């Protein structure tokens, strides 16, 4: 069971609000850690600030048919289709493991309607061992679903304010880069009562085979992630940093300590590592250790002062 983390004495600890006090600013991203158990056999997850679970919906979902993933230069496209065990099984089967861990668990939530999202939160609200919710308004791979919220300012405001009424836990709104103005959507989340925003979710992309004349993914389009999207992610974090006051959790293509530092520089208070978990299961813990080492040895700056210290 996670007791209060000793925020003061660690060199890169950070409070994102409402009890999401991270011992260091590294989380593992939703959809790239399952529910933690598999990775825990390969890395020491307690070195991390926390993990974000695979998206949870009200009902169990089988997800898309294969092919679900395809590699692209320095990245990958996925169209998993939000395969997940559903909220009840999540509580029953996955929470006992997560509750016993020394890191924060943030539950990623997806739904088809405002009611759906709220119902999942209501069911989770009394479950111990959860530190917050990351609201996925931005999955590109399920037609006609949550994406409609994430691309619309009003819908984002409405769903955030409804969710705010359902929970006292940390509410993190996850943003899609597939919009004209990400700052506008981030502001709507802030107005609705979000404690933080996380970005970016994957970038819509496609891979095709000119010989078979078919798409590589069964779903036709997918979400691009990995090092290929880092420049996009940095630009979006910087844009949002200049618009909102709530903390930003940055992600997109982080492969090492240096990449993470770039996100802090342009305004992220914490980061998430996604696709690279597939390549190096130990990557998150390594990055976390290196960040802590840097801020415990580097003179003249603290972690908090470093956030957003970008000079143009």
């Amino acid at each position, binding site marked *: 069971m996670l007791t209060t983390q000793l925020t003061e004495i660690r060199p890169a600890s950070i409070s994102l609000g409402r009890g999401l006090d991270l011992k260091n600013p590294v989380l593992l991203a939703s*959809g*790239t*850690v*399952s529910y933690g158990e*598999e*990775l825990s*056999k*390969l890395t020491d997850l307690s070195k991390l600030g926390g993990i974000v679970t*695979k998206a949870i919906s009200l009902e169990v979902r*089988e*997800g898309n*048919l*294969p*092919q*679900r*993933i*395809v*590699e692209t*230069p*320095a*990245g*990958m496209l*996925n169209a*998993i289709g939000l*395969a997940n065990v559903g909220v009840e099984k999540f509580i029953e089967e996955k929470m006992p493991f997560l509750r016993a861990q020394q890191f924060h668990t943030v539950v990623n939530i997806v739904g088809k309607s405002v009611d759906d999202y709220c119902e999942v939160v209501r069911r989770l609200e009394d479950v111990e061992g959860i530190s917050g919710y990351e609201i996925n308004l931005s999955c590109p791979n399920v037609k006609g679903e949550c994406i409609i919220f994430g691309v619309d300012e009003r819908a984002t405001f409405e769903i955030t304010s409804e969710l705010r009424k359902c929970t006292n836990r940390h509410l993190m709104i996850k943003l899609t880069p597939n919009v004209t103005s990400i700052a506008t959507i981030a502001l709507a989340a802030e107005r609705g009562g979000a404690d933080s925003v996380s970005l970016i979710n994957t970038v819509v992309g496609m891979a095709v085979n000119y010989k078979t004349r078919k798409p590589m993914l069964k779903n036709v389009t997918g979400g691009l992630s*990995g*090092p290929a999207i880092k420049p996009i992610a940095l630009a979006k974090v910087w844009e949002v940093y200049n618009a909102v006051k709530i903390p930003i959790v940055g992600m997109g293509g982080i*492969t090492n300590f240096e990449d993470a530092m770039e996100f802090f520089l342009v305004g992220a208070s914490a980061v998430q590592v996604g*696709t690279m*978990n*597939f*390549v*190096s*299961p*130990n990557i998150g813990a390594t990055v976390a250790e290196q960040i802590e080492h840097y801020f415990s040895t580097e003179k003249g700056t603290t972690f908090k002062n470093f956030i957003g210290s970008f000079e143009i």
Partner: protein
Amino acid sequence: MQIETDNEIRDLSLEVISNKQLTPSINVIVLHAPEVASRFKAGQFMEIKVNDSLFPLLRRPFSIHRVVGEQIEIMSKVVGIGTKILYSLKAGEKLQTLAPLGNTFGYDKDDFDLGVLISGGIGVAPMVMLEETLRARSKDVLNIVGARTAEELVTRYLTNVHLATDDGTAGFKGNVISLFSEILPSLKGKRLRVFACGPNPMLNALSKFCNAQEIPCEVSIESTMGCGIGICYGCPVRIKHSDGTIHNKLLCQYGSVIDAREILFDE
């Protein structure tokens, strides 16, 4: 198939002892792997990062081909960027390797005396270790090895081999299933179990054939894999349970060896 118990996965940097090009597109890489060699079982696989750059990004799955003392061998066929890099790898280079992964072939089952090992193309890779394992358990072994053409046939270390090529340049002209059905009458009275690996269309046809003939059959399936360790959800297969329900399972967790009566292929 059976579930492996001693399955602690290690992420190791392994040194290449040698890399032998057997054909213009198939090579065998020998790796020094004292930490995991003795724990590998026939049918298991590993995830290999072919270089330490971001392109190609993801690891690639490869079956265990052979274990010799502290050395493990993989047999690779060039199909794209990653396998091309592996083809020209030099001794002394290192490969980051997650292993051992997956379940194993059901070599310990006691419902058979003769293991029929049916492979197509690079599906021959896991058969060497499987044959050795079966022989160590005093089982008889019969190999049916298929390829498009004679040039692509690799049968090293296999015994009692029956060949099939699509173009008839070696052995039987036709596919491995036709060859198997020709051989089958001569195996009458023997308790058989089929172990197969190859392209999914071949495994699909073979599964149907074996199910219809009521011959126990297990197949090592191919799928794109993003991680090999159950965290990307990129490798689903349709499984039909004994109660008739159908569910997606992750091949890297549930397989890669699956009973022919359970697997539903994407047609």
